[in-house]
């Protein structure tokens, strides 16, 4: 429950703090003014007229107080609204470009780009499950038990050491530590679909043969991953309208395919195959 819309206490706390500070500032300003007024009453010449009285007051006093109030309120509402909208959208995963810091500075550029490791070597469940899954630490260890970047002093790179600390591996002896209390790695989720939308990776990867990069962008060039697509429904629907269903190479579509061929149809988009229907993703 750390991040639902209702329980985001940080935002509320910050707003309250700002309000309190503004009130304090207001009170202090009022006290100062009163003191100055008292001084001026006693001895009109003693206080030099302030910048406010010389420059701002003559201008501001000309303004219509109603309009000024309305403008200020409108300004606050617009700023607050923009902030609230962005916050709300992020809550449902609309956060294109989102690129949070991760507990390990893992670089897709090095792994997928330079070393050309296949995406599904690590994200192995993408072709058979709903989730692409962040790989478990033992997948990292397949290589990093041996592959260790070390600095001049022979220390293992900080980032690789983080894997070792999580799983319990001693780089010096190259052995797993017995009875080690393992600490899971707390990755930050970048792609967050709301609960109301069902997305299945395997449908797209194994059946639809969609490239990972189509949705996730040039991942092999990213040192730090960011959300490439909007992940909004319009974006989903657009693709479903454009892509065709490959009916030739899957026996599941056999009957449907011959049926359509007899009707003289050779190309069918995902949309025409029911890919825009609500109940395909929302249930």
């Amino acid at each position, binding site marked *: 429950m750390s991040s639902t819309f209702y329980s985001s206490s940080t935002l509320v706390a910050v707003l309250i703090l700002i309000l309190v500070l503004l009130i304090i500032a207001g009170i202090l300003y009022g006290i100062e003014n009163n003191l100055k007024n008292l001084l001026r009453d006693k001895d009109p010449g003693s206080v030099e007229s302030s910048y406010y009285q010389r420059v701002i007051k003559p201008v501001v006093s000309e303004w219509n107080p109603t309009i000024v109030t309305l403008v200020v309120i409108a300004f606050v509402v617009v700023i607050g609204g923009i902030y609230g909208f962005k916050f709300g959208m992020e809550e449902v995963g609309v956060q294109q470009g989102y690129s949070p810091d991760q507990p390990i500075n893992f670089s897709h550029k090095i792994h997928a780009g330079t070393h050309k490791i296949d995406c599904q070597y690590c994200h192995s469940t993408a072709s058979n499950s709903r989730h692409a*899954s962040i790989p478990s630490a033992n997948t990292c260890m397949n290589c990093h038990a041996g592959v260790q970047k070390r600095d001049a002093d022979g220390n293992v790179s900080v980032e690789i050491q983080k894997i070792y600390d999580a799983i319990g591996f001693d780089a010096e002896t190259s052995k797993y530590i017995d009875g080690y209390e393992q600490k899971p790695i707390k990755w930050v989720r970048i792609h967050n679909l709301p609960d109301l939308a069902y997305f299945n990776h395997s449908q797209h990867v194994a059946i639809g043969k969609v490239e990972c990069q189509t949705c996730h962008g040039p991942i092999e060039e990213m040192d730090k991953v960011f959300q490439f697509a909007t992940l909004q429904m319009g974006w989903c629907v657009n693709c479903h309208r454009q892509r065709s269903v490959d009916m030739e190479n899957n026996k599941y579509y056999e009957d449907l395919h011959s049926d359509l061929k007899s009707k003289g149809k050779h190309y069918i988009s995902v949309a025409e195959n029911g890919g825009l229907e609500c*109940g395909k993703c929302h249930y």
Partner: protein
Amino acid sequence: MKHALPYLEKPDNVTPGIPLYYATSCGVYNEGFPIVAKVREGRPIKLDGNDKSTLSNGGLDAIGQASILSLYDVNRLPNPLIKGVETNNWNEVDKEVINKLKAVSVEGKKIAVVTPSATGPVLQSAVNNFVNAYAGAEHISYDPISYSGILDANEASFGKRVIPNYQFSKADVIVSFGADFLGTWISPVRFQSDYSAKRVPTADNRKMSLHIQVESLLSVTGTNADHRFTMQDSQEGIYLMSLYNALAKNTGATQLRSTGDKELPGNGIKQIAEALLNAKGRSLVISKSNNKDHQVLVNHINMMLGNYGNAIDINKPYLSSTYSETKFEALVAGLQNGTFGGVVFVNTNPLYSYHNATALEKGLDNASVVISTSMVQDETSSKAAVHAPDNHFLESWDIKEPLKGHFVFSQPVMTRVFNTRQVIESLNIWAGSQVSSEEGSYKLVKEYFANNIGGDWKQAIHDGIAEVSTILSNVEGEIENAMLSLNSTVDVAAIESGAKKTGDLELILYQKVGPRDGTWSVNPWCHEMPDPVTKVCYDNYVTISKPDAEKLGIANGDMVSISSKNASIDKIPALVQPGQVRGTLGLAVGYGRNVNQKMDNDLRDLGHNAYPFVEMPGSSNSMVITSGIKIEKVGGNYEFALTQTHDTIEGRGHLREATLEEYKANPKVRNEHSHHLISLWNEHDLSTGHHWGMAIDMNACTGCGSCVVSCSIENNVPVVGRDEVRRRREMHWIRIDRYYSFGGSNGKSMTRQNDVDAASADLYEDVEVVYQPVMCQHCDHAPCETVCPVLATTHSSEGLNQMTYNRCIGTKYCGNNCPYKVRRFNWFRYNMNDKYDYHFNNELGRMVLNPDVTVRSRGVMEKCSFCVQNIQSAKLKAKKENRNLSDGDAQTACAKACPSNAIIFGDMNDPNSRISAIKKDERSYHMLEEVNTAPSVVYMTKIRNKK
């Protein structure tokens, strides 16, 4: 910020997002019942029957379905208790237990280890080890519901104290005296699947079995009978003798007595005798009576009819109970006089369900040490000095043997939630055996398998069952069925004296399908599901016949007090029940539980405990109390939480029924009329691809409610509680409508409420019942779709009526426009809301949620989706495996759960599917077809086997 925590070392067979299925055993039945648990990311989320087993046929009943929640019950004891203080150190527990027990032994006092009577072989051997380890230790069994009448009668008749294997699939005529075998009697799931196989006439075989029920209260089984006669349970013996004599007259056997025979109202005995004589060797007579003399008489009747070796198999008995009250009564006496000094209660809770709980409580106060192993702090464990909680059955290794030679294996489907330990380990440790702390019960079970059953261990665990014929051939004292003879004589005098009328009202204690005997009833799903017959949720009540109610001035819902010689309840609502015999009251057991409840909800102080009313007239206890019952109106009225408030169909055609004769003469009976249909809308073209449809056979449906619970679990349907049900805000996606019609036995039946109200109260006994499960009909001309202002409900190309929650703005137009009234509105946020303190409101309970289905929020409509998540995953699986979708790949939760195969789901565009065949059956029709909603659900006319 949202986090994702992957495994550090992923187990090989676990893929996040892909369910795993494990065959195991359902612990609701002490004798074991084969089930398959669906597990996602290491947590079980759904239980279904294991269709590899002949016992289950793939179905599971409501309480079995609901039992998954007991795994995620926050009321479970997280750690063992020593004198009420939690400890996490089991060694301390063991030290304490062993010291205490040794002290009792040294004192020369006896120790009792009390288990349910059906232990299964592994627990039995653990108990044996325990008994051997302590001088004076004794194994005593305890069951809340006793079948000792049947057991003792079979001992007298055949020298074997067993419950025979009743095979309803082999009976053309079934006569049941009060036995609710489709709801609660012995093994209802198995009986249902056997029974309904013979209840469905088809085009090739226009036959069905004949079921006659003779009973006092209206049971689920009685509602399914072709003929139903009412009797007062005190007179059961007389009627059984009369039936015996009527049969004997024909078969040439000696009459039991020359005078005193009695005929049931409506010439019941004559009709039953005729039917039975026409089906000799193909019939079955059973009785719920716990009176040995009655059961001996039933044995004699079955013997005369040649049913042994056919519908009754005494050689392969059903091992659900061997309970004998005598030994437990002796324990209670022994505790009071000090001969017993210690008791270990192994998953038994007699302080709740024993009829003389005060005597037992006194006895337990005397005892030096009381140990309990129950999972929650219940009535009995409150007296325990040491509480060593057992694992949940889904966390346990075990072997069960429900039917002789038919083994069911339990394997853990989840790591332990709490610091608990399986009782077979505990008993062995307390007996001083070395039990490896790591392998524990796994080793014990595997060793037992290797030594006693044999075969491929991995295959056995994979299948969850093993049928071992070698064991069968060695059954001690097996008797050739042909050689089977009766050693017993019918005690006419005892039966006659037992049937003496006192003129008092009789009280019949019975079990309800939801809470059953109460052991597993602290579970919201057991109570949110309405009782199949009364449609009341959450309460127990005194059922009373209409004539009695009128005589006593009691109206439906009036508060009454009820008392017997032994017990009384000051204030309990009365419910006027059609079909109930006059002079008899009914009261359900399974309520009034008093467990240490951590949640604040309607399960707290729910109903009244009826067990104190149980009497001990002889060596068997009796739930039929024939004298000393007083009922009085005490003022005040109670509003029942009802899910159905109108009981009759008002002569309309949405529910069709016919007699077997009519059906044989014209298979299309009641479905002949075709309507002139007009449509305002363009047709959907559903000819390509799939077109999902469902068939509901009202002949097979017994109304048991298993589908209701199964659907709730599969689709994350919230529990709303009693008050919301009163406001008609129950959220179930599937409901079972129960309709009464009156006067069916004498010609035309009455289905209009006004006629029924005008008729005399006597008519209320003569009731016929039909169940009609109703869920979204997925109409191809859906009235809901055309009125939604925001297109939140639309039609799919596969014929599904889709509900899109995130689009819904809650106008409820769709619900108002639905002629089937299947749409439910979320009036509140039912999750993470303290007002609805059920499993949706705590982290542990929420583990049962199905991750593939949205948890709906406030302000949106919802309804049956035909389990679209299962359709989608079945399609995807077929695509991945590069094959066509075959019939049965996509299943709805209700169809899977149904023990009697009353619900068939499939693709209507697939010419080879079962649903396509059913659609063409003459019995099939659409509900309200005259309004031309073109539903995707077909109903099949109810056929009754009567003239």
